[in-house]
């Protein structure tokens, strides 16, 4: 069968099978029959294999993600405020009280404080990351 005939048969089926005025040849009729069977099979609805509460699960996941982002924003805000206040306090001590015991302590254990703060922030960051991974694995 020529390709143009196949094209014609497919177009007929696309338009809802209006048989042509000229009768079809035996081979063409057989092809049309096969195409008709194929068309019916292709248009058989497929039942989505999704969990019954799919829509609820999706919206729960979105809510969880929103909460996580809000919490992360809040934590970052707290960290920024702490940094600002801490930095301000250290600056005030340096500029206004050269002999204070706090400053002496700072100069003695100087590197530990910013290091500790960085560690806390790192723990916060890792915690958020792990929570996200966990949320993903639960879903």
């Amino acid at each position, binding site marked *: 069968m020529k390709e143009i005939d*196949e*094209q014609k048969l*497919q177009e007929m089926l696309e338009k809802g099978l209006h048989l042509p005025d000229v009768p079809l040849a035996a081979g063409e009729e057989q*092809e049309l029959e*096969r*195409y008709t*069977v*194929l*068309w*019916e*099979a*292709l*248009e*058989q*609805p*497929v039942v*989505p*294999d*999704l*969990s019954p509460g*799919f*829509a*609820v*699960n*999706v*919206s729960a*996941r*979105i*809510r969880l*993600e929103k909460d996580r982002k809000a919490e992360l924003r809040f934590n970052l805000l707290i960290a920024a405020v702490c940094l600002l206040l801490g930095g301000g306090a250290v600056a005030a001590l340096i500029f206004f009280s050269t002999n204070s015991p706090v400053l002496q302590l700072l100069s003695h254990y100087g590197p530990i404080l910013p290091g500790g703060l960085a560690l806390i922030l790192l723990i916060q960051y890792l915690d958020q990351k792990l929570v996200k991974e966990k949320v993903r694995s639960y*879903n």
Partner: protein
Amino acid sequence: MIDEKELIPRILHGDMKAFEVLVTQYQGLVFHVVNRIINTQEDKEDICQEVFIKVHQHLRRFEYKSRLSTWIARIAYLTAINYSKKYSSGNTVSHPEDIENYSFTDEHPGHLLDKKDVTAYINRLIAQMPEQYRTVLTLYHLNEFSYQEIEEITGFPEGTVKSYLFRGRKLLKDKLGVYLKNEVS
């Protein structure tokens, strides 16, 4: 049928119940698209969820220039394709030029004859076809998108969509001929 113009503003105002209505309405469409591109059963639901999360994130960008179903189908298509490329473990077939001579691994339908199920046989054949054929056949026949809409969803030019459809159907029809012949004899 839901009224999109009434539903979308509600979702944008944070109404999650309205979003669940949208998910319920389009989960079939998303599943059909994802199902044809992803072969691993356990990943399908996860990817469908990802699709709807993206729909929720980007809904503000929907401009009513196309049907909402077309817009969602495009997100589903791109998400599934990206996933498939990222985690491809040989379940996707590259783009064979010579589709007429395409050989299915499930060449002989003999073991399916006892099921007397043409649809199951066709679906098995489609699952073995290259991704672009699977996609256009699904979008056209199952989801009833037009050529233009399939072009919008997949990015294939309209002529290519028509060509994939024609060649895909022809290939399936030829295999079906063998199947029907075996069933009669």
